[in-house]
């Protein structure tokens, strides 16, 4: 996956995003874009504002300043529901599955924005409502097959091991058939094998479905291997943006990661 990969126009552009909580600044003048079909990594030390950036993209946080252009439409801010129904799905740093529900039901919630039948039809569970439910069940089964989690279909997710929960969470995001998939540390806390599995799924998703992926990850090896372009945040500011090779060679990135204090002023 070297230079031969071709990407389309930007699917998402953020411009000059400023976000603060009370007096604490989380993001300051951050701009970057994500191209259609690429794997875009967002990296940076702890507290750099990476998760806040994802939260801005899918509308959970509303920035005080800046604009977001998604699929050609420019907005001041996104709304969570709007982001979800227009094709942005995500996973979370600390697993945010619905603990009381089975794997199957969890993944089915990913189809929620696509289901149309109203309350009355569902209460009757006849004809159209039943057909709709089965159609979506069919799609979800494909996701389950893809992620190789058939055996835990009916298990309550609270009982699953950590790595499996991460996989179910990815499944829930995939079930929404996203155009832009936001992954917040999908490999955190995993062992090597689990990481390899997860990398494979991420690349397969990108490859087979053409889904654009933005991911936050701490494991540099993984980031350098699977991402096409990398944006680096530090203390809420963008300090580098480019291919993995470019970023790796950037002086400011090295300083940010090694904690070197600047003494040039």
């Amino acid at each position, binding site marked *: 996956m070297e230079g031969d990969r071709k990407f389309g126009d930007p699917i998402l552009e953020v411009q000059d995003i400023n976000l603060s909580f009370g007096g604490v600044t989380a993001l300051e003048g951050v701009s970057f874009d994500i191209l259609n079909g690429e794997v875009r990594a967002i990296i940076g030390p702890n507290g750099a504002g990476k998760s806040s950036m994802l939260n801005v993209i899918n*509308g*959970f946080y509303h920035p005080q300043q800046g604009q977001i252009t998604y699929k050609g439409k420019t907005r001041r801010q996104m709304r969570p529901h709007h982001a979800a*129904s227009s094709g942005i799905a995500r996973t979370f740093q600390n697993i*945010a599955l619905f603990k009381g*529900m089975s794997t199957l039901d969890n993944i089915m*919630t990913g*189809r929620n924005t696509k289901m149309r039948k109203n309350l009355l039809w569902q209460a009757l569970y006849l004809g159209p409502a039943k057909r709709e439910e089965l159609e979506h069940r069919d799609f979800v089964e494909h996701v389950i097959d893809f992620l190789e989690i058939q055996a835990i279909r009916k298990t309550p997710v609270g009982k699953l091991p950590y790595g499996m929960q991460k996989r179910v969470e990815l499944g829930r995001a995939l079930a929404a058939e996203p155009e832009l998939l936001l992954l917040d540390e999908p490999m955190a806390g995993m062992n090597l094998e689990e990481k390899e599995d997860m990398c494979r799924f991420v690349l397969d998703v990108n490859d087979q479905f053409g889904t654009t992926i933005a991911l936050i990850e701490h494991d540099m090896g993984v980031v350098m291997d699977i991402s096409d372009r990398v944006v680096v945040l530090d203390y809420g500011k963008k300090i580098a943006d480019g291919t993995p090779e470019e970023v790796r060679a950037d002086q400011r990135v090295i300083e940010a990661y090694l904690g070197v204090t600047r003494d040039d002023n």
Partner: protein
Amino acid sequence: MFYREAGQFKTDYASDQALFPIAQDRWFVLAVLFVAVAVVPFFVDDYWANAITLPFLIYALAAIGLNLLTGYCGQVSLGTGGFMAVGAFSTFKLTTAFPELNFIVVILLSGAITAGVGVLFGIPSLRIKGFYLAVATLAAQFFLVWLFNKVDWFLNYSPTGQISMPPREIFGILITGPRAAPEAKYLFCLIFIGIFALLAKNLVRGRVGRSWMAIRDMDIAAELIGIRPLEAKLTAFAVSSFYVGMAGSLYFGVWLGAAEPIEAFGIEQSFLVLFMIIVGGLGSILGSFLGAAFITLMPILMKNFMVDGLQLAVVTAKHIEITMLGVLIIFFLIVEPHGFARLWQIAKEKLRLWPFPH
């Protein structure tokens, strides 16, 4: 030995999604229904109807309602008594204002009115959560009961401060009023509640139920995957209040026949129904039935035992009953915080393996 699912292969998702995917379960449910419809009516006299079967069925309906809101959507409500009052008073006003209206329509309309009131009092749930919301629902409880007690229009200017249900027929059979046959009342409630339990079950296993549970388990994540909290919470309040309102309607119309707002719809009712769903199992339709059975039957058994068996004074027995109810609730919470529904599941698991547990 008899409870095995081996050999029952499902070849499409439709049969996997069925209500009772295992054949033995289907037979069991049919058997229970058969007994309830064809055997029990022969034994139902006034005492059995008014003290046991009607309370059980009607409280089960209310418990299903509250369970939809609290067990499935995670919004604790202490306003059940107040919402039952809305159902009851809607029924009273509708039947007295439109005597020709079919009683079933009256019940459904009462449910719908309660749903509207429920949505109104559910609006705070968008801003406040957990116990703050639970306490806020007490506002509904106290305000509604006060309203029905104070405004004479709701009581049809009755000088006694009571409302009483006029006799009404369905398909020519008397259902309400003092002269209605106990078996008619029983069968009517049974069929009505059976149907609505089924509808509730369908709801909770579909999209709506999943969005409720998502809100319950992690509301932020639910919002970020595109479930609108506003829609999910308010539908939960609406559907839940609809059920509770219908239960209030039957409670007043079929079971009690006459009611006084403060006595019949006090905060004790709210707690009683909450107990039912906790003891029965949060997030379980079956649990609502089991909880309702336990909470309605237990005091009767205890009273019979203490007053008739031990010859205790009625007042003392009442005090012991309250104490024992408290003790039993604590005991069940400690032994099985997930209620009878979970015990039932465990029993089924055991039965699947029996008699070879390994």
